[in-house]
């Protein structure tokens, strides 16, 4: 296959549809096989991008403006590879998880396939209207996965998530309409040279609307209210997929529009504002995480905090010297990759613990250290990445971000990053401390399969080893 790009979208669509036809709860094996092939395709595409630079593909030979173009540069390559790498162990985990605890499996497999198809299509989209369609598909499938948990809590969380995601993509689409009305095109390639700092007011409004819509979907403080119930209430494999990957998709779009098409519209004030919101997210998310009593809610609030780090990138890359900006951008992308791996591992480990002891209560974790040592080790390794301790990927990310901040003389952000790291260590240690207590009377550990423990461990060790292999990731990111 000379062009893996369209197959990365078609493959999940095919196996998801087959899984749907086979009925409720079926299709786990299809998913594992499909994702294995997708991983190979993504690696192939990444290799092509690394050697020949950015690639574009015209679907069905029909080019823009009427047809659909796919476009993959280094950033898209990193995210495509990351998505398949995170999803494959999670799918293996999900098979073992639902074998023990079938609640919420109903249409898990087809929805996961459609979710991955939407996400891959989003990373490859070359025009803003296709981005809107893929965003909407991603939102609808994610809502379906959250609602599959059943019960009033998950259904309420799913409905709130749906309304927020519809509001977000509505704002985005109004922005698309204004851009199209002004320039008569939606292709990013056509728009990039047209948009400049003297653009009419409608374009500035459009950029603002699109940014707010995407911030809602990325759950940046103060738009984070929908995330903890949706991510904390879903079955563990769903929480892992959503927290690790789905919030990253809308962040990817912000980064892409900010760096390329809308770069001339960017102001220092807007960048500083995003940085401050990121800072608020880190502090508020961490404090709320420390105060939670349920393990999965703690991890969900930790996602709110870690998303904040991603936004510290913007003040560091806007109107600063090129060396500092390059370092900050690399740091931001490393943070994205490291968090995706670590958060997937953490939710998977939490799911295993909850399956084994049958409840989701941080104060009742006594005995986990002796009964589920590998799972607890997984949780701790993921915590290491979140707190940014060496040699994890999270350490490299924070190191690069701090280098960017010191290189552009914005020392305030360094303080934020370091205190954020300490706060994450605090909530991770809170869980570890409880887990090392002795078993309480009345706590029973039911046996869990090794697949659950090892697939989560694989994700956590990748987040750690990322620190040693960061040059490859950054090399791929650089290829334009």
């Amino acid at each position: 296959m000379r062009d893996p790009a369209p197959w990365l979208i078609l493959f999940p669509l095919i196996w998801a549809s087959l899984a749907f036809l086979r009925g409720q709860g079926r299709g786990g094996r299809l998913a594992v096989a499909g994702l294995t092939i997708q991983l190979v395709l993504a690696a192939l595409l990444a290799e092509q991008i690394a050697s020949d630079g950015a690639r574009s593909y015209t679907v069905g030979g029909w080019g823009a403006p009427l047809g659909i173009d796919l476009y993959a540069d280094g950033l898209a390559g990193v995210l495509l590879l990351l998505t398949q790498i995170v999803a494959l162990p999670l799918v293996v985990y999900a098979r073992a998880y639902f074998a023990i605890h079938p609640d919420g499996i109903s249409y898990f497999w087809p929805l996961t396939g459609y979710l991955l198809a939407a996400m891959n299509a989003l990373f490859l989209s070359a025009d803003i209207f296709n981005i809107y369609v893929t965003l909407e598909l991603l939102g609808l499938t994610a809502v379906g996965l959250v609602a599959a948990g059943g019960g009033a809590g998950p259904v309420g969380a799913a409905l709130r998530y749906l309304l927020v995601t519809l509001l977000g993509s509505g704002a985005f689409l109004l922005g698309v309409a204004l851009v199209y009305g002004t320039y008569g095109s939606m292709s990013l390639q056509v728009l990039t040279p047209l948009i400049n700092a003297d653009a009419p007011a409608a374009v500035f409004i459009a950029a603002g609307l699109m940014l707010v819509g995407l911030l809602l979907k990325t759950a940046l403080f103060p738009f984070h209210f929908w995330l903890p119930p949706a991510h904390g209430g879903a079955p563990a494999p769903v929480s892992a997929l959503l927290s690790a990957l789905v919030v990253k998709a809308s962040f990817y779009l912000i980064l892409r529009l900010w760096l390329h098409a809308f770069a001339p519209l960017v102001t220092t004030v807007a960048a500083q504002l995003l940085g401050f919101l990121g800072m608020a997210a880190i502090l508020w998310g961490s404090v709320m995480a420390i105060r939670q009593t349920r393990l999965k809610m703690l991890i969900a609030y930790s996602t709110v905090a870690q998303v904040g780090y991603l936004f510290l990138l913007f003040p560091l890359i806007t109107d600063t010297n090129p060396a500092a900006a390059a370092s900050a951008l690399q740091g931001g992308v490393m943070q994205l990759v490291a968090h995706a791996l670590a958060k997937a591992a953490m939710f998977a480990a939490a799911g295993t613990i909850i399956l084994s002891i049958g409840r989701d209560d941080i104060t009742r974790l006594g005995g986990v250290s002796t009964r589920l040592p590998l799972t607890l080790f997984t949780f701790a390794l993921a915590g290491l990445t979140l707190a940014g301790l060496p040699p994890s990927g999270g350490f490299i990310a924070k190191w690069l971000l701090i280098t960017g901040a010191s290189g552009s003389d914005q020392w305030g952000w360094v303080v934020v990053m370091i205190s954020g790291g300490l706060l994450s260590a605090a909530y991770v240690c809170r869980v570890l401390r409880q887990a090392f207590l002795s078993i309480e009377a009345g706590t029973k550990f039911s046996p869990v399969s090794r697949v659950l423990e090892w697939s989560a461990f694989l994700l956590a060790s990748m987040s750690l080893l990322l620190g040693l292999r960061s040059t490859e990731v950054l090399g791929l990111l650089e290829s334009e």
Partner: protein
Amino acid sequence: MTSALIYALTGAALFLIGVAGLILQPHLLRKIIGFNIMASGIFLVLVGLGQREGSVDPVSQAMVLTGIVVSVAATALALALARRLLDLTGKMRLPGSGEGMPGKKPDA
């Protein structure tokens, strides 16, 4: 004032009314209707700004058609979830999650 501008401004007004309904109305059915008004406003902006000197732009019409399909699917999903929530809780409003959601106070 050109007709394109009138359409666009009407669309923007509808968008704002829809967003206000979506955020402020506690009743789920009203929220879903609010979303539909918001979507209609966006489509009006798309079609209104899409015309060039009175002639019709097929691309913006195609986009609006796609948009309508998406919003119908989203409405169906929202209605199905709302009905499920009504069956489970007996209320047509979102359960409170404890912290800051404008217009959505926890049910006492």
